[in-house]
């Protein structure tokens, strides 16, 4: 079985940061990069499936991004991925889930994967959409937000986590794409030796153009365009409630009901 695990090097913002002068993004000096938390879980699912099988399964980590994003791939290789692929394009608008999915689709397609395992979302962009969009491009059956999984020859039985703690159990045939929720397992870590050895493992870099994606194709794929970036309105102080304690309680109850619905 071949399992492809698309991963992302995420950016966390320092408490204090500055925007670029043109407002198009954050000054990269104020970002800290790390492997997306969700991707550690999807990778672990892949590694466990490989370990449970005796058919010479292969786990391939794939990312889209600049050279620095190779850190995320090296982390996957150190933990046990067999090889890695980075699709390189410095101009990619990596905040747009459809663009990223389009590029990933071109790379994953070459792999003929039995299973594609994505994280539910990335901690910086929080779209929760890239994985399922990728399934759309690849025409792969898919389930989103999986919190448990069992492989049974040719299909997997998964638990889909719904709002309010409800869980739906489903069976889906392979090949398929799943987006994996945190907590599904305890991701392993790499020891120092594995971290050093990860640099010896195959890591291919391909240009988006080599995958048949020119700038026009990518522009057409983009789901949106950013008009601007600004600090949130938060912090201006709360809307203060008035009246007696009973009225405040009633208002709070109303807000809670409203927010918790849907």
């Amino acid at each position: 079985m071949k399992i492809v695990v698309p991963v992302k090097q995420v950016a966390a913002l320092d408490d204090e940061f500055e925007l670029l002068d043109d407002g198009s993004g954050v000054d990269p000096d104020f970002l800290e990069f790390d492997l997306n938390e969700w991707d550690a879980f999807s990778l672990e699912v892949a590694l466990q499936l490989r370990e449970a099988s005796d058919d010479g399964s292969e786990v391939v980590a794939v990312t889209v991004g600049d050279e620095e994003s190779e850190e995320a791939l090296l982390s996957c290789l150190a933990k046990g991925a067999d090889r890695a692929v980075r699709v390189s394009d410095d101009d990619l608008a990596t905040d747009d889930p459809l663009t990223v999915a389009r590029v990933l689709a071109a790379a994953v397609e070459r792999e003929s994967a039995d299973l594609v395992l994505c994280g539910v979302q990335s901690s910086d962009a929080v779209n929760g959409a890239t994985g399922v969009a990728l399934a759309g491009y690849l025409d792969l059956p898919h389930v989103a937000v999986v919190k448990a999984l069992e492989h049974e020859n040719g299909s997997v039985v998964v638990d889909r986590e719904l709002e309010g703690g409800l869980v739906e159990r489903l069976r889906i045939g392979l090949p398929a794409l799943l987006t994996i929720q945190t907590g599904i397992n305890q991701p392993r870590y790499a020891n120092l030796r594995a971290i050093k050895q990860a640099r010896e493992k195959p890591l291919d870099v391909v240009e988006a153009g080599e995958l048949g994606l020119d700038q026009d194709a990518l522009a057409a794929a983009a789901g949106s365009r950013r008009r601007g970036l600004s600090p949130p309105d938060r912090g201006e102080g709360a809307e203060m409630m008035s009246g007696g304690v009973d009225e405040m309680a009633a208002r709070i109850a109303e807000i809670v009901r409203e927010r918790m619905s849907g």
Partner: protein
Amino acid sequence: MSGVLVVAEARRGELRDVSLELISAALSVKDQAGGRVAVAVIDQQPDRFVDQLAVDGVDEVLLVPTPTEHFEAHVAGRALTELIAAESPSLVLLGFTIDSLGFAPAVAAKQGLGFASDAISLGWDGGPIVARGAYGDKLVSELEFPGKETTVVLLRAGGFEPAQAGGAAPATRTVELSLDGVAKTEHLGFQEAESADVDITKSEFLLSIGRGVEDKDNIPRFEELAEKLGATLSSSRPLVDAGWMPSARQVGQSGKTVKPRVYLALGISGAVQHLAGMRTAETIIAVNTDPEAPIFGVATYGAVADMFELADELEQQF
């Protein structure tokens, strides 16, 4: 291309509340979008929700019967694809929900539509524009969709007042689509989550208590309240320091960073270390006797009140 198509959401025979928020959002841009709002119900028995969707301003309810009893992502995806082809809306609104995440991005990708996920507000400037969080909600990003004839937006719940049903019965139209054999998954059952979970980072509703609780003996009082409200109990650091609460329940820099839908803080003044762990909550309601408490600086709503009196009253509300 014109008009707004709202995709209502139902689960296990019940319309989900987010549907009415989506209708409100749709109505807010109805005129600019071409003056038409339609609501689609994709369900085994779609007509059962028509009364609940009788909102003034909704022009039509589209009933899309499905062969599957429960939501099925590929069935929903095919239905949405065909509805868009047939109805040509400029804007399609869905909830930012687990079900929507299971199919809408695939439809948008495959059909080359405009797409935005987890939108927190909706506007119009020649076409739809939305705002959404960036960098873990530390910033707000405004998005537009140039050149897209149809744009799919997944809207975060809580941003719009739910529309009031009870208006004139809306016009309905049944849209028969060939959905047999489209499903790719087999439903095996539902399970309620185990209640023993105390992972506060996973809770959607946290009732968080602070120094104002005054005494260890008062903790059970708030455990009961949390249970009654359906919330998970968490706390600020002083209570953990004092050994009154386990450290797994601590919100803040040295505890857990949480992102619930609702964070109800009782008797928490809001030390910086605490705020760092909860400011990412979607809605923060703070109750404190001190009107100058720093927590009011980050709260969405504030109430200057005694937490015990408020707890008593709140209990009556649930």
